């Protein structure tokens, strides 16, 4: 299985503060990979380093090519969809406009993509004129996924999808992520604090601590790992 | 402690230079230097308001107009001593500032800026309407005109006095309250700072300073107060001076005042430029370039230099 995404010794800083101290990881094509860790471990920063939202040093290789250090719009054009903390929803615009924006980098007709999206999220069609900011948390998360899907990316970067959602919704969100991965072949790198559900959904995972990779491996292994169980799974 | 000693030392040195300077200058240059002093006072006022309490005002030309007309009218009608008229201007503009500051409490950021801009544009129209008392477009002529040396002396003495006044206000409890307001209104209120009082006070003080600058301005234009002198361009000039000065530093104010006081006339001496319009082109260009290079004004530059020097000192001591 080829690696779709490779990070080699990536560091990132916010002004004078270094948040990542040399992170290396790999995401295979067609995989779902999780990044776990406590608050402040650098999980969000890792995603930001990949999409170019934050300045980074080190090498990021995507689909065989090195990503240059330009802004997030370049990453989007290369086929990376980043759903950030806060979901990146355009709250003032309506649902339909949010979806159209998701497809911004695509040329040609997006009608087929819209149809697929409506299959996954039928309620989006009825609510297409509703202002996105008035959707509930769970609906906004779904909208974010739908928007990312409209981009037809090769890689989906998901930042803490479970944040602020009730457990039933979290399960639903991850179910859809798995379906997108299996049915559409979408590679996913998901950052999560909810280690339990992340390990269930992912084939492999990385555990970050203070800006470095502390552990990595197949999910099944990690789920049994002593320190992971104690720190992140609660038993 | 070291900084304060350096501060007082520089201030003393500056005072000595200023006191001796006029004797080395021609009358024309004395007048120019007096004008710089005038702008110094005006920018100082604006700095107190915007730099220290964060309320943006583009209306100080209006307060200058009020101060200037106070001087001219008092002089014309009552032959009042000119220095006394400055005190009157201070008092009157302080009250006007309070009056403006009260409704300003309801406005934030750019809305406040535009409201004050509106004020600045409207005030010069008042003498046109009430031309019987305020001279209309013909203006008001003071009873007495002053010599260049006298004006230089009064301008810079006033500047020094007001500088010290500003310094005293800003280092005390009021100044701390001002800075608290600028940095976070929510935090300031939670700490017991009564916002309305301090914000309005800042407006009053700032306006008073501008009023005195207006008096000096009128004295500098042959004692003649005219609506066309106090148009938008004046408020914009003060604003540019304050931006070049950088907000929050009393020393940058001197740089800002020198910039707007000297540049137009200096550039007209350069042979290529000549006409007034050439001056404007140069002035505009230089303003733009300065802002591109020094977005935080001279104050920002000084702060950066201080930081580099501090870092250098630290490194040296290891």
């Amino acid at each position: 299985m080829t690696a779709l995404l490779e990070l080699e010794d990536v560091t990132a800083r916010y002004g004078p503060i270094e948040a990542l101290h040399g992170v290396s990881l790999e995401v295979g094509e067609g995989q779902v990979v999780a990044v776990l860790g406590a608050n402040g471990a650098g999980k969000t920063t890792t995603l930001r380093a990949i999409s170019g939202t934050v300045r980074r040093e080190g090498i990021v290789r995507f689909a065989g090519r090195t990503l240059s250090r330009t802004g997030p719009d370049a990453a989007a054009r290369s086929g990376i969809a980043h759903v950030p903390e806060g979901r990146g929803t355009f709250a003032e615009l309506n649902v339909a406009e949010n979806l159209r924006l998701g497809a911004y980098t695509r040329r040609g007709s997006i009608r087929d993509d819209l149809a697929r999206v409506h299959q996954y999220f039928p309620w989006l069609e009825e609510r297409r004129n509703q202002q996105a900011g008035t959707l509930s948390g769970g609906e906004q998360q779904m909208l974010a996924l739908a928007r990312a899907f409209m981009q037809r990316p090769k890689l989906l970067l998901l930042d803490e999808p479970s944040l602020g959602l009730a457990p039933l919704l979290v399960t639903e969100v991850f179910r859809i992520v798995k379906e997108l991965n299996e049915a559409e072949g979408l590679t996913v790198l998901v950052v999560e604090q909810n280690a339990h559900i992340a390990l269930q959904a992912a084939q492999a995972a990385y555990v970050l601590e203070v800006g470095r990779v502390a552990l990595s491996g197949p999910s099944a292994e990690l789920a049994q790992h002593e320190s992971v169980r104690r720190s992140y799974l609660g038993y | 402690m070291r900084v304060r000693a350096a501060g007082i030392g520089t201030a003393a040195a500056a005072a000595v230079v200023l006191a001796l300077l006029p004797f080395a200058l021609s009358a024309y240059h004395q007048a120019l230097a007096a004008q710089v002093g005038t702008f110094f006072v005006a920018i100082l006022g604006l700095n107190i308001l915007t730099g220290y309490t964060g309320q943006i005002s583009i209306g100080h030309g209006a307060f200058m107009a009020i101060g200037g007309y106070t001087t001219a009218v008092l002089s014309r009608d009552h032959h009042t001593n000119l220095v006394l008229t400055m005190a009157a201007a201070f008092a009157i503009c302080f009250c006007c500032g309070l009056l403006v500051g009260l409704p300003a409490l309801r406005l934030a950021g750019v809305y406040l800026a535009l409201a004050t801009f509106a004020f600045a544009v409207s005030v010069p129209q008042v003498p046109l309407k009430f031309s019987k008392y305020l001279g209309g477009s013909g203006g008001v002529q003071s009873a007495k005109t002053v010599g260049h040396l006298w004006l230089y002396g009064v301008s810079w003495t006033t500047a020094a006095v007001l500088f010290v006044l500003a310094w005293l206000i800003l280092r005390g409890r009021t100044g701390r309250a001002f800075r608290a307001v600028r940095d976070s209104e929510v935090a300031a209120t939670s700490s017991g700072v009564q916002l309305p009082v301090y914000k309005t006070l800042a407006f009053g003080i700032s306006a008073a300073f501008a009023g005195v600058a207006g008096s000096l301005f009128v004295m500098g234009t042959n004692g003649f107060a005219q609506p066309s002198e106090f148009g938008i361009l004046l408020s914009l000039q003060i604003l540019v001076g304050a931006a070049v000065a950088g907000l929050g530093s009393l020393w940058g104010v001197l740089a800002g005042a020198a910039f707007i006081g000297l540049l137009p006339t200096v550039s007209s001496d350069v042979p290529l430029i000549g006409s007034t319009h050439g001056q404007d082109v140069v002035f505009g260009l230089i303003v733009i370039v300065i802002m591109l290079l020094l977005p935080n004004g001279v104050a920002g530059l000084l702060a950066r230099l201080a930081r580099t020097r501090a870092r250098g000192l630290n490194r040296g001591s290891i």
Partner: protein
Amino acid sequence: MSALAHRIGLRRRRSDRGVSLPVLAALAAACVFIVIGCLSSNIFAEQTVAGLAQGAVYASLALALVLIYRATEVINFAQGEMAMASVYIAYQLLQWGFSYWEAFFVTLAVALVLGIVIQVVLIRPVQHKSVIAVVIVTVGLFILIDGLVNWKWGGDIKFMQAPFGNKLYHVGAVTIARQDIGTLVITIGSVLILWILFQYTKLGLAMRAAALRPAAAALVGVRVDWMLAIGWGLAAVLGAVAGLMAEPSQFVLQPTLMQPILLYAFAAAVLGGLESPAGAVVGGLTIGVFLNLVGQYVHFITSELRLPFAFAVLLGVLVVKPTGLLGRGKVRKV
């Protein structure tokens, strides 16, 4: 599938619209008043139409200001002077033998390019550093353009060909000038074209997204910086339209042409709410009509007091509704 989600998280919050009910009611009442006035008095009707035409010019420039403010939170003090320079460019084209409408459209194209260039060269370097710095750059630009125009063409009055002539129409007993209708058509037409661009095209959507949420826009692939540049270009075009329509009859051209209009445009933009394009248009038209009617019927308000009066009213509105008539309530109040 997400019927589950549907069942669980459904609490539709009321969207925070900018237009509150009292404001709408007041505007509706004003419209009714105007209509009744027009029907009862010829002079009223004539002043209203003239006021609308003038107001449309203010609205166009106000819209330019709002476009830029929405995208970059900056007040472009040079907007009026940029518009004035555009008019001089049109003047020059006419001197070179172009027909009026040829000159008109070429000028708009030049304004578009100039707006983009100014944003890229002068604004982009400072826009992230300090808001004050950007404002001062626009002030410097104001002075620079003023100087350049005076230097190249001189400050004396020039006469320019007028697009609409002096023809008068008679609707019943009311006299309406062709130029007023022409002004209204052109300015409102430009605003409509722009509206269509923003609402119905991909580019317009991207520009709105870049203005509202630049970080999120970048993530979906929008080149935010270029969207801002195009925004400046379009604002410059609106300004040029305002300038060209500023005196549609005997066109008297001098460098101070746009200065009073800029002030009324500021008033209109603030009145309507700085973040509201619709507000800018409504504000402009309102000020135009209101000032004309007041000037006609209230004798204390002579021409010198027009400007202070407009601002007094503006300040009055701001005291009651600090973010303007159609603005969203974003006032910081502790």
